[in-house]
């Protein structure tokens, strides 16, 4: 009886194994290569805080596809404008226009933000309406004053391209291209746009900055202005040497206007207390990203610093961190202003804008 039982069990095992083998033989294995991010030293400790969705891990194939799509003008209705049209690599993925102009020649009302270290951002757009890079990437394609396209058209265009079919198959295991896969790929590429190699980063790492000592002395004086609550008090919103993102990732009304033509966060939340608030931008690579503010009203860092020094305007939602509003601001001395600007310039990472992995493939 025991022998009969053993024989039955063995038979079942062979049957099961045999079934599995047959099924596997018909399947093509989808096995993309994990993309290994190499983080700059100042960002290494922050790797656990990166926001990478479980359903969109970085892969070599996905990043390569996202890079191609980022520079793909066929995402726009007339084939003339890619993401890189407004987010130019040599401008730290911003542009030097006050407002970006879409394919129909219509300008928007917000300044194009740079694309740097987005994996650590809690929200995107000046008003924070996108909670992920994937969400953000869905919008410009169909925005009537940007790419003015339809996702169905984009999907058709890409499906009819054999190269794209193969690239999507390699990245996502399917040639059935849809908008979600397009934005997933673009998001993967954008998550690789990491900057952490400025002169100030090198200083923090104990490396030579490449700057003349007298200039870096001004940088360090500027850091003091930046960090002093009774002077610049920039750090509450823009971070500090322990925060390599140089933003607090939240929203403030920084005293630009007494009344608001653009409600910013308030238009998203519907709360009056959020009117006139915009997300704090990173200070990284400011040298490349003029003009400044959500509406690009300031053409130079000098104008920006003068705003906080003497140009603040009161309003019902002005941030409590804005100082001496009655006097227009913190009244920095010419030396403080000069040093503060030197400090901000030290956050420039030229290697970021020349990185060959970030250019048009």
């Amino acid at each position, binding site marked *: 009886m025991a022998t009969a039982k053993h024989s039955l069990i063995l038979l079942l095992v062979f049957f099961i194994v045999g079934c599995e083998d047959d099924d596997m033989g018909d399947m093509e294995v989808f096995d993309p290569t994990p993309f290994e991010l190499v983080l700059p030293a100042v960002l290494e400790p922050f790797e656990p805080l990166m926001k990478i969705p479980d359903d969109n891990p970085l892969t070599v194939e996905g990043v390569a596809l996202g890079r191609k799509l980022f520079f793909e003008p066929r995402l726009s209705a007339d084939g003339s404008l890619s993401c890189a049209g407004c987010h130019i690599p040599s401008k730290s993925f911003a542009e030097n226009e006050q407002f970006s102009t879409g394919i129909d020649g219509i300008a928007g009302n917000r300044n194009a933000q740079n694309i740097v270290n987005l994996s650590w951002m809690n929200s995107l757009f000046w008003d924070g309406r996108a909670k992920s890079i994937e969400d953000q990437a869905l919008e410009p394609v169909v925005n009537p004053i940007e790419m003015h396209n339809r996702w169905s058209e984009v999907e058709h265009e890409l499906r009819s391209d054999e190269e794209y079919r193969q690239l999507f198959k390699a990245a996502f295991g399917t040639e059935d291209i849809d908008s979600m896969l397009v934005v997933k790929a673009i998001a993967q590429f954008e998550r690789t746009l990491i900057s952490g190699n400025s002169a100030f980063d090198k200083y923090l790492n104990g490396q030579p900055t490449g700057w003349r000592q007298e200039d870096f002395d001004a940088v360090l004086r500027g850091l003091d202005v930046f960090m002093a609550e009774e002077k610049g008090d920039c*750090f*509450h919103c823009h971070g500090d040497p322990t925060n390599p993102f140089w933003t607090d990732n939240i929203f403030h009304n920084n005293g630009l206007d007494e009344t608001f033509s653009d409600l910013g966060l308030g238009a998203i939340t519907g709360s009056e207390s959020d009117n006139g608030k915009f997300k704090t931008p990173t200070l990284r690579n400011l040298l490349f990203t003029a003009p400044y503010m959500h509406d690009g009203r300031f053409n130079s860092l000098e104008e920006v610093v003068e705003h906080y020094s003497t140009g603040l305007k009161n309003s019902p939602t002005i941030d*409590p961190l804005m100082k001496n509003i009655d006097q227009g601001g913190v009244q920095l001395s010419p030396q403080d202003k000069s040093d503060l600007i030197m400090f901000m310039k030290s956050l420039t990472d030229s290697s970021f804008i020349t990185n060959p992995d970030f250019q048009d493939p």
Partner: protein
Amino acid sequence: MKNWICLVMAFLVVFSWSCGDDDEVSIESFPVNFNFSSEANGLQLELNELQYENEAGNTFSVEKLQYLISDVSLTREDGSTVDLEGYHFVDVTDPSTTVYDKGFTVEEGDYTGISFVFGFRDEDNITGAYTDLNALSWSWPEMLGGGYHFMKLEGRYVDTNTNTATYATHMGNAREITASGNVIHSNFVEVNLEQSFTINGPATIGIIMEISNWYSNPHTWDLNLLNNTIMPNYEAQIMLNDNGHNVFSVEAIIQ
């Protein structure tokens, strides 16, 4: 044969039960977490409402309230403590941060108090040591002693001209400027709350902050005089420390 197997299994079950009884002392542990809530003038905090009054008579609102709690401990009846190491960042505008739940388990029994540090003790208050706090721009400037903020309390108040003005009450290390140089003083607050309670099941301990108490007892704080640039103000930092001993209470212990 079936009967045999049943007998052997029954024996094994009984044997394992009896072994367990012999080895274990029957003290159970239960999960415990903490819920931090906020009120002003005894009312549940409503953000952005210019409706609260402090001891100095200032009408004020709260727009931001963030603070740091560390080294929570529970005191047993015999005076020994259960130390729950770690820290927690509370942001009143983000409900997900008001519950401090790090998987703590606490032995059943009678307890007489709850203690915690508001901020960090000096040995924990190390600039740049906590990546999550760094990403929140929570650092305290090196020129003021470094480490981290303990609190950011911000909002608006009605000033002496009946205009609406802003305040930012930030707390951290206290820098004293003396003739012989800067002296950095610890400014964390040891909060000790006497409360008798029994842990006999999973528990949530509710801690409540009365915001207006930051501005009273023993020091009456007038927002017309102390509204902004509080961080480098040594006397103001010490006032906050003194007043901070009377800000928290136990709201409830829910089991």
